[in-house]
Each structure stands twice: as structure tokens, then as C-alpha cells.
């Protein structure tokens, strides 16, 4: 595979480009935002977009562009951390199921079923009750939701690979289950995992926004796109701009990641285009 082949997929270029731009915007907020996000100046609230405040100001006079930058970072950070949990636990689970089979497979599938049965919001409410709301709570809730998604994708992909002759050859050469999983199965399902990860990243950003919106995620004075939406809710009829900015940002990020995911799928494994891909349950 080379870069030229990748660049032949326009959806990949556009999607990945836009998603990277948003991620960079978020990263920049670590070192610089036009205004400090916790700086409240009530006298300048509800300003429309102007040269001093490109995206206007919110109900407390905070600069909306700064808030969007910082909020985007929070969204990416939460979704990415949740992704690490999902891949880190889910993929080994799926590989183990495929390599060992039998009781291990049964256990992995049942655990996945049970976890799937609880929507991430229910898990988040549970964690919030035990430990209080916060970003960590959101990461855990979305991460737990990600685990069975990756377990299933990894198992499905690995089962297809496990019937190949070279796997049988490896087994004859005396390789154990763990070694087969690591050496033969994992490299061959890596593209599947990467594509699924892109999709889960966009779902994670959506989930973080949802959790913050209902008050279980990020807490003031930190900010996230969902929290901005929540703040704007009661003001929407009078100042619709306050809701449009974070809402549109979420939509754009999610679309960008989905397009990138589709493009990656086409680029990495053309066969998958025909077979379709499990986009995960939202």
C-alpha cells in the first residue's frame, strides 16, 4: 500500500483532512485561545460574529471561538481515550475468542451481549451516581460501550483469517494460540480495526456531547461542545446562534470522521466495500 493509492480516494482525503483540522484546532487550544475560556465579562455577552470575536460571545460574555476550540479538544480527548479502552480490551477479547474457541469464545460473546444491552447513557448514570459526573466518567462510560464493538469486529475478522492455510501451517509448526493470534491474526485484521476505530471515534464524540448535554459529562468551568449546547438550550429562542455554533461543530466533526472511515475502508480493503461493515450500534 502506498500514499498515492490512498490519495485516490477523495472521501478519505476530505474526511481525514477535515477531522485533522478540527483535531489541530483543539490541540492549539492547549497553548493558545483568542481569549481565556474562563474569562467572564457579562458586559459583552450575546455579541454576534465580529472582528474581535469571530464566532461571537455566549451568555456570560465568553468568546465562542475559544470555547469551540477548547470544547473540540475535550470531545476528541474523551472520544480518543474511550477508543483506547475499547481497542485495548475489546481486540484481545475478540482475538482470544477466535484463537481459543469453545468456552472462551462463548464467554466473550456473552460478555459482549450483556455490555451491548446497556446503552452508554445508563452506564454513565451509574458511574455518575457512584463517582460524580465528570470527563473521566464520560470516558469510562463510552469506553465500556466500545469494548464489545471491537471484540465482535476482531473476532469476526479473525475467524475469516483463521481458516487460511498459513495459519494451519503455523499451528503445525507448533505455535500456540497466543502466538497465532499475535503473529497471524492481529496483523491481518488491523485494517478492519482502524476503520472501525474511525467510526467509533465519531460515535464517541457524539456520545460525549450527549452525556455533557444531560449534565453527566464535562462540568463548568471546563467546556465541551455538549455543555455549550446545554447552556444554550433555554436561550435558543432568543439567541439561536449560541446553539448553532456548537451544534454545527459536532455535525461537521462527525461527518468528517464518517467520511474518513468510509474512505479508509475503501482504500485499505476494497473487498469490504462489497461485504459491508458493521458500523456499530449508536
Amino acid at each position: 500500500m502506498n500514499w498515492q493509492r490512498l490519495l485516490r480516494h477523495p472521501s478519505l482525503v476530505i474526511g481525514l483532512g477535515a477531522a485533522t483540522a478540527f483535531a489541530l484546532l483543539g490541540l492549539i487550544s492547549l497553548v493558545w485561545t483568542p481569549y481565556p475560556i474562563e474569562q467572564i465579562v457579562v458586559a459583552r455577552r450575546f455579541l454576534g460574529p465580529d472582528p474581535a470575536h469571530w464566532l461571537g460571545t455566549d451568555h456570560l460574555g465568553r468568546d465562542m471561538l475559544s470555547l469551540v476550540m477548547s470544547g473540540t479538544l475535550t470531545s476528541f480527548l474523551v472520544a480518543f481515550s474511550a477508543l483506547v479502552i475499547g481497542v485495548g480490551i475489546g481486540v484481545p477479547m475478540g482475538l482470544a475468542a477466535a484463537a481459543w474457541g469453545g468456552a472462551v469464545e462463548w464467554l466473550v460473546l456473552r460478555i459482549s451481549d450483556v455490555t451491548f444491552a446497556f446503552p452508554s447513557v445508563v452506564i454513565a448514570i451509574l458511574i455518575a451516581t457512584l463517582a460524580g459526573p465528570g470527563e473521566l466518567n464520560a470516558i469510562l462510560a463510552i469506553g465500556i460501550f466500545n469494548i464489545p464493538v471491537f471484540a465482535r469486529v476482531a473476532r469476526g475478522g479473525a475467524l475469516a483469517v483463521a481458516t487460511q492455510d498459513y495459519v494451519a501451517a503455523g499451528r503445525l509448526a507448533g505455535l500456540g494460540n497466543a502466538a497465532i493470534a499475535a503473529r497471524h491474526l492481529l496483523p491481518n485484521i488491523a485494517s478492519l480495526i482502524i476503520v472501525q476505530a474511525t467510526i467509533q471515534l465519531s460515535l464517541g464524540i457524539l456520545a460525549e456531547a450527549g452525556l455533557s448535554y444531560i449534565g453527566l459529562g464535562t462540568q463548568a468551568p471546563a467546556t465541551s461542545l455538549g455543555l455549550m449546547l446545554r447552556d444554550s438550550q433555554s436561550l435558543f429562542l432568543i439567541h439561536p446562534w449560541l446553539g448553532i455554533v456548537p451544534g454545527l461543530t459536532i455535525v461537521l466533526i462527525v461527518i468528517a470522521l464518517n467520511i474518513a472511515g468510509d474512505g479508509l475502508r475503501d482504500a485499505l480493503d476494497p473487498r469490504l466495500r462489497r461485504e459491508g461493515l458493521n458500523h456499530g450500534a449508536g
Partner: protein
Amino acid sequence: MNVTKPLALAATALLLATGAAWAQSSEVRIGVALEPPALDPTAGAAEAIDVVVYQNIFEGLTRIDQNGAVQPGLAESWEIAEDGLTYTFSLHEGITFHDGTGFDAEDVKFTFDRILAEDSVNAQKALYEPIAAVNVVDPQTVEFQLSRPDGLFLFNLGRGDAVIVAPESADNNASEPIGTGPFAFVQWDRGSRVILERYEPYWGEAPALTKATYLFISDTATLTNALLAGDVDGTNNFAPEALAVFENNPQFKVLVGSTEGETILGTNNAKEPFSDLRVRQAMAHALNRQEIIDGATYGYGVPIGSHFAPHHPYYLDLTGTYPYDPDAAKALLAEAGYPDGFSATLKLPPVAYARLSGQIIASQFAQVGIKLELISMEWAQWLEDVLGNKDFDLTIVAHVEPFDIGIYADPNYYFGYDNPDVQALNETLNATIDEGERQRIAQEVQTIIAEDAVNGYLFELAQTGVWNAKLDGMWQNAPIEGVVLRDIHWVE
């Protein structure tokens, strides 16, 4: 599922909807943000209880009118002895409770014995402690013996905490309230609504409404839409940030009035570093009151400089005691040994004025070096942590009880202010009847607590009601907790 069922349901819903429109002339649906935890006003502190039941289901010997004045209630008249220690009340005749049992002096004695009992759960028990004995003279006459004169006694009898309950029904009032008021309880659909209906045998003047429904809608956007769609006819207190939706709409009227809610930055005076007067003074200097009022109440709050309602005749304007001055704040912090400021937590209950004020104050304090960590909590947790265990640095809350400056005389109250001078003054105030003298003492207490910067004094909450333009008779001000239905009526 076949098609006829949904159709039939839709038709029924349509009939119900049109039926409601025809019958509107005597029914009202009121949206309120908070659902009461129970419906017994004599066994809980929640304002939400009084909003539904006060003067509607339950009545006291006296009642507070919309100007905050004391009016006769179940007692048609009273006499006060020369020494101010004996009150004799003549009760109205022919009053019945909603379950049909009669009302007489025995019920009054039962009510106050219950309030003052050892195991009483009354939220304002301390207010009634001056009562030494309640004697039944005859079924229509009851006599109160006080252990000391009490200038606010008649007002306190008119509070929701002192409404008269019957021994037959008192135990069930939390879920099925039985009182003597003009409206009887019909049903409570938890999480949704409480329905009241006019009590036809009511002893007093019959109210214009035949039915009232309180709908519990905590979300501002939902309440906005319910008002615009006509699903509710009004609300006594609407979020000020969205008030502009209704301000120029001829179908609605916006009633802006005063409340008894002093909103304060509650400060743990018993804890370092807040036990140092200079630190509290520094915080007072760091507060930009006008910005908080504009940001958190959209300009509807009234600035206060002490713990006292600005519309009260005893009010003294102390807002200039510690004017906004970040430099003075920094100097005082340095003097107190915190040249670089300090970190503290700010625990916020789930109300918009607290959450918004909290963010603004955190930003203002950051300018003088005080770093606040905001902790948002639910009411139950706030009541336990802050009010119960006093486990907090700072908090923001509105004290909605009328004339509640007496809380500064209680060293065990959550903000832990222990000043013998204030305690002595409060005792004198309670025992004083002369108006001029009471005013002088009340103002002295206001001045002391303002200068001691016990708490950060922010603003008096406004009551911002939104009502259907054709409704009349609602209280503009809220001199006491409650939404009194007595005078509400439709006008064409």
C-alpha cells in the same frame, strides 16, 4: 396493532383538548419548576410544598396577604393581653376539613402540640418555641401563652409551617393532604402533576376557579414551549434568561415582583481561611455585584449589602460597605498571609442562579488570586453536605424565608457565624414589640453582619411570573412562599 385503536385514541385526545378549551373559564394549569418531595408543609422545608398547598389546601389562624401583611385566617379576630404574653383567638364557625370532619379549637391545640413535640419534624420549629401553652377555652376560642413577647408571632402563625391540621388526617398529609382551604386535593401523579378542585363547602368566599393543576416542568425550554403552545396557563417564576420570549407578546403578561430570597455566597466562617475577617473582607471587595446580577438574573435581581430584603421597611442600604475593588482585595489577602491567594471549593445546588453566579464569581475571584473549584450537586447531596455536615468552603443559595436574619444568631447554622453581640441583639429583637425599637435593632444587626462580611451578599431574587394575559389575580410579589389561587380568575 390495528389502525382503529390509534385513531380512536387521537379522537379521544382531540375531544379532551377541545373540552379543556371550553371549560377554561374556571380552570387553571400552572407550570412550576420543582416538584415537592411531599405535600405536608408542616413537615418539610421545601418551598415547592408551599407553592402547591399554602392557602390553597391548608390555612393557618392568620394568613399573609400579597403585601406581606397579616390578615385573619381561620381566626376571625384576636386579642393580645397588655404584657404581650397571652393571645386569645376567636375561630370562625362552621369550618370543615376536606374529609368532612369539623374544625375547632382542639385541632389548633393538636397542631401546635405536634409542631413543638420532641420528635417534631417541622422545619421552623424554632419560630414557635416561645409558645409555652395552647389552651382550649371553648370550641370556638383558643388561648396561646407565650414565654416571652414575640414581635413576629402573628406573622409566624400565618406561615405554611403553622397551618392547621386535623388529628384524624395529619399522618397522611404527606401524600394525601387534608386541610380547611378553598381547594381540596384530588390526585398527585408523581413526576407529573398535582390536581386540586374547589372545595364547595368552604367557609369563606368561594374562589373563582373550580380546578387547578400544578404541572412540574423543570426544563426551561420545555416550559417555554408549554406556555407558547397553551399547555400551561402560567408560571409564578420563570427563568429570567428566556423572559424576553414573552415580554412583547400580547398573549402573555410578565409580572416582575420581589421575593424574600436573599442570595448569598455562603461562607464557612468556622474554617480556615474564612475564619479570618480580612479574607472575608477581601472576598467582599472582589465581588462585582452588578456583573453577577446582570449575568445570573439578567438584571432582575436587586443588590443587597446585608442579609435583608430591600422592600422591607427595616432595610438599610449597606451595598457600599465593601465596594468592588480588586486592589483592596489583594492588599487584604496579602495582609492576611495569602499574597498569592488560595484555592477553595464552591458547592453549587442545581438552580440556575447558583450555577451562573458560581461561574461568574469564580472568574471574579481569579482576578485577585482566589482559585475556585466548582462542584455542582443535586439538592439532596447539597442539603447533606452543606446544610447538614457543614462540609464546604463556599456555596451559593437563596434564603427564601421572610425576616430570617435570626439565622445569624445560631452558631450551629451551616455558615458557622458565632458572634455573642448578634446573639444578644437577636434575643432583644425577638422580645421587642415597639416598631421603632425593632427597626433600630434589626438595622444594627444588618450593619454588624455586613461589616463582618459573614457571607458574600449578592442580590435579592426577583419573582418573574409569566401568565396568560387573560388571567388575573396572581400575586406579583412573593412575601411568603406559595402560589395562592384564591383570587386568580379569567377575564374576557
